[in-house]
């Protein structure tokens, strides 16, 4: 007994080091594994508050660009609105009565953005009290941004498209062939669409949009254009280099998409699997 105490006293620094290293390594491994809750994240009240204050200053630096983007988006929406009116002057695309919509859209603001790591996250101003929940899709007017990973009462973190862990169902707009959109961790302007069947006719410049198989994003949200086509030697599928429409290094206001039917779809799929 005496010897054990002596040992602990003599090596107290070493033991403390090993203990702290163990804690930090376990946190690291936890953050690298899929679908685990993240305790140490920038969604907590303290870090969220600091980022909000920093963002209050930084926001002024790209007001002009944000304005242009909003004006562009307004023009697109106006085009949709005017083209929806038929010769009788009635609106053809009648809005569904409330309570029957499938998609809900929330407004949020990016207050922190990282893109220099392999696993990049954004922090949003907007959390549970604004209706945001984990696994909702985040887009802006140009295209897909990411998927919400964790929320606190007024902030949330988003797993960006530029994260080697993220995987989004996407398709080629012209031919409806599906693939998965991943990021290889190299260039912030490009993502990769993998597992596209060789039957698909792909050409440089074709548009890539989100596919209908994902219950997070609605169909046909733009992602980017094909920049280069490779054939994966191992699987004999196409790998496409996709130039993203979004400049992921410069994000302002974003929209968060909630699919109200998601729980129902998941429950059904779960039940089917268990049968």
């Amino acid at each position, binding site marked *: 007994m005496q010897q054990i105490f002596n040992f602990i006293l003599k090596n*107290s*620094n*070493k033991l*403390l*080091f090993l203990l*702290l*290293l163990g*804690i*930090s*390594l*376990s*946190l*690291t*491994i*936890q*953050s*690298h594994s899929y679908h685990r809750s*993240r305790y*140490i*994240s*920038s969604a*907590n009240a*303290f*870090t969220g508050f*600091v*980022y909000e204050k*920093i963002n209050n200053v*930084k926001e002024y630096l790209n007001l002009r660009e944000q304005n242009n983007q909003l004006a562009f988006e307004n023009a697109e929406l106006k085009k949709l609105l005017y083209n929806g009116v038929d010769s009788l002057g009635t609106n053809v695309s009648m809005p569904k009565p409330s309570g029957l919509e499938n998609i809900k859209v929330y407004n949020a603001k990016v207050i922190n953005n*990282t*893109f*220099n*790591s*392999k*696993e990049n*996250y954004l*922090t949003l101003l907007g959390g549970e009290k604004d209706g945001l929940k984990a696994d909702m899709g985040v887009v802006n007017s140009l295209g897909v941004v990411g998927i919400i990973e964790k929320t606190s009462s007024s902030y949330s*973190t988003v797993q960006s498209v530029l994260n*080697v862990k993220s995987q989004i169902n996407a398709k080629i707009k012209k031919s409806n062939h599906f693939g998965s959109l991943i990021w290889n*961790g190299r260039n*912030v302007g490009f993502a990769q669409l993998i597992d596209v069947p060789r039957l698909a006719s792909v050409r440089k410049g074709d548009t890539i949009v989100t596919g209908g198989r994902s219950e997070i994003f609605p169909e046909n949200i733009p992602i980017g254009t094909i920049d280069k086509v490779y054939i994966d030697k191992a699987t004999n599928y196409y790998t496409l280099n996709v130039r993203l429409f979004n400049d992921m*290094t410069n994000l302002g206001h974003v929209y968060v998409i909630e699919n109200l039917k998601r729980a129902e779809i998941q429950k059904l799929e779960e039940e089917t699997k268990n049968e």
Partner: protein
Amino acid sequence: MNSTFITNSLRFVMLLAIQVVIFNNINFLGFINPYPYILFIILYPVNGNKAGLLMASFFLGLIMDMFSNSGGVHAAACVTLAYFRPAFFRFSFGVSYEYQTVKITDKLSPERFSFILIAVVTHHLVLYLLEIFRFNFIWDILLRTLLSTIFTLLLCIIIIYLIKPSKR
């Protein structure tokens, strides 16, 4: 004793604040960020409490992790640096460093430079190894470690000179 405690606490808060507000947003060439907050560990008194340093570096790293959403990467790197600091002292200043009072904030000599260099390289190597965590990015890890080390080293030396107490 009391005044060194206050100095160190102030340094802890100040370096963290500067790191989060300014240096985390530099993104030079898209991926190089300097991490001069580790100056806290480098400048900690040579004969100070070792357990205290370990705890302080752990929390320093943990707060950085909260801000950068990186799990426990910074905490692990900081704790490693804090634990091996005496060994680096012995390497740079000779075996009997504890008897001659080493002051890192003094004039830049080859010994001091080598100490800061080893400390920064160790921290960054552990940091990027754990942050990227994939062996197929090994060249990326080494490249980032190299470039960020140069950047951090320059900033550390500049900051040391800026906060150096003036000679009477």
